[in-house]
């Protein structure tokens, strides 16, 4: 029966260990969620290339060649925000709360600036969602991405307030890491969208 007692003790210790492991479960959960989101956008990229391959002139003639300047600035801002957030995660790992607050604040400002520029860009496209498949793809894909950026900004704001309330330490920074995984994903999807909607059409094929 001593075996049973030993097992009981082992089990209690193990449950403690599992409580520790569970705390990083949220990061794993967010990684899986992002994998799922990646498949979601992959389907749209698949639709884009299916239609692109079957269309002789891309973008179609009624679509003006996109003006690249504004969205290039927006892209630089969003990519930069990825680096500022990484700096924030680094600060969180070292337990430097004030640095974390600063980097989170900068990231949020960059994210909002991206949204403003994209809204401005929407008003200058020169075509509406009804103007053929290119317009369908452009507005649906960038619109869904914009919704993800808005979600990401809200997520970062939440983490920012948690950080200001002193909820993070060297032992606990999972929400920061989760937000960063999500934000990097949104960032990478945008780079893909920038390529297919702003750079690819410049060739005028």
């Amino acid at each position, binding site marked *: 029966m001593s*075996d*049973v007692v030993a*097992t*009981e003790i*082992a*089990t209690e210790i*193990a*449950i403690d*260990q*599992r409580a520790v*492991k*569970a705390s*990083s*479960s*949220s990061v*794993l*959960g967010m990684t*899986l*969620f992002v*994998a*799922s*989101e990646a*498949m*979601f*956008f*992959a*389907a*749209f990229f*698949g*639709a884009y290339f*299916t*239609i692109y391959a*079957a*269309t002789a002139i891309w973008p*179609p003639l009624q679509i003006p060649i996109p003006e690249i300047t504004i969205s290039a600035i927006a892209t630089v801002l969003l990519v930069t925000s990825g680096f500022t957030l990484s700096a924030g995660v680094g600060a969180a790992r070292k337990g430097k709360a004030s640095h974390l607050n600063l980097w989170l604040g900068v990231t949020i400002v960059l994210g909002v600036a991206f949204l403003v520029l994209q809204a401005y860009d929407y008003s200058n496209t020169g075509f509406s*969602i*009804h103007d*053929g*498949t*290119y*317009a*369908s*793809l452009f*507005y*649906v894909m960038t619109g*869904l991405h914009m919704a993800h950026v808005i979600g990401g900004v809200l997520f970062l704001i939440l983490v920012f307030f948690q950080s200001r309330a002193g909820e993070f330490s060297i032992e606990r920074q999972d929400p920061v890491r989760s937000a960063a995984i999500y934000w990097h994903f949104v960032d990478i999807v945008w780079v893909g969208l920038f390529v297919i909607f702003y750079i690819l059409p410049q060739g005028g094929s």
Partner: protein
Amino acid sequence: MAVGEVADAVAPEPSRKGRVLEWLTTTDHKKIGILYLFSSFSFFIIGGIFALLIRLELAQPGTQLLQPHLYNEIFTLHGTLMIFLFIFPVLNGFGNYFVPLQIGALDMAFPRINALSFWLLPVGGLTILSGFVAKGGAAAAGWTNYVPLAKQLGTGEDLWILGLLIVGTSSILGAINFIVTILRLRAPGLSMMRLPIFVWSVLATSLLTILAVPVFTAGILMLFADRNLGTYFFDPSHGGDVLLWQNVFWFFGHPEVYMLILGAWGIVSEILPVFTGKPLFGYRGVVLSFLMITALSFTVWAHHMFATGSVELPFFSATTEMISIPTGVLFFNWLATLHRGKIRLETPMLFALGFIAMFLIGGIDGVWTASPAVDFALTDTYWVVSHIHYVLFGGTVFGVMAGLYYWFPKMTGRMLAKRLGMWHFWLQLIGFNLAFFPMHLLGLRGMPRRIADYPSGLGWSFLNLLSSIGAFIIAISLLVFLVNVVTTLRKPRTAMDDPWGGNSLEWATSSPPPVHNFDRLPPIRSNRPVYDLRVAEGRAMPSVDLPTSGGEAG
């Protein structure tokens, strides 16, 4: 265990209102598992009534009961409810209840997200059903919802899209929860290669879910935009691609088929060893097969589109034939597990054996139709209807029933009656084959699927009548099952902790388990820890026919 029982006895009986509130707000994986089972069976009954209406209409030529448009709505929602709101969630219900127990965990990794993923389900299901009162009626383009028809129908289509968006979100959240739970919350000693095979099946299903369901979500969002925002994804007259829907749908749809069957494979692979008194033959082979099928299932989607003439036939035919290799390994391992086993024909075992036989027929159908030449002849005939039902009813539903009889004592503390179980099994087996085998012949005789009526004199009438009689025998068998469940639930809790002589950890706790699942865990040194404990304690196999009064066998 004693502490838990004392607490139970002392705690005042909660009021009826308190109990309802507890079920509505629970985050306990066991209660959520039961909610999943209850919700799935409710949708099973609704979908089953739709099936009976279809079979009544088709029992003889002529329009008797359902006008063609209503018929289209009924068969569309029959398929949609059965696939998205019965089969997938019922397997999730078992997963919710038994994955944490089988890995010795206290609960799922994210209990509140778990509750959310359950409650999204009835919301999604009712949204789809609400199409019946919408303008233009419910969705009526089949569960595959092909464009352009799906673009032309009424508001019910939008409700179908919205409902499945909700159901899809529910399944993705559930799958993330399962993967994190299985990877992070296993008991000490429970390495991946010691996981119960059912847990492996849930893990594979969850991987498929997070990778395939979002593609479907993207597809139905494109369809929603085409219908409501004036986009042209699927409209060839404006440069869109009508086959894009089929590609997107089946890229999800074929992995979906495996999401609907993997759980049943897991259940049967749990049950066979218990009722043969042998370990599962080739455990590693089964795990590898699950993983190979998970990977291969993303490469076969276009075999649903052979007849469109725009897919690479040799490639998709070859990948489809390849997937029969790991499936064949599974069959071999099940048969090898049975070989020279001491077979106990308890009700769960009967259903497991029924599963093997019926799923074999469904599987062979699939191998045949993977050949393009055969497929061209059989596309959109009743052969296809027969095939899907041999896989999903003969396969999954028999597996689900096996699981229910097997785990019912663990979930409720009560054993389902054996005699009624026998009646249920034989009626279901006979009714099932009577309902669906004639459909093979109807398909070979060229009867198209999804038609509300057919002319007499084509040799279809008698086979259709047989099929309709079979459908009603299935309905009777399910009534027997419901009577069994209701009468058993009124009896006292007499089931032992381990009534079957199980192998996995759920049998190491009481029936039903306490809120915290385990008071203590046995040491885990193999993939059969409870069997090891029995051997170590020198206990023989427990006698199944002699229920003891208490739950103190452990």
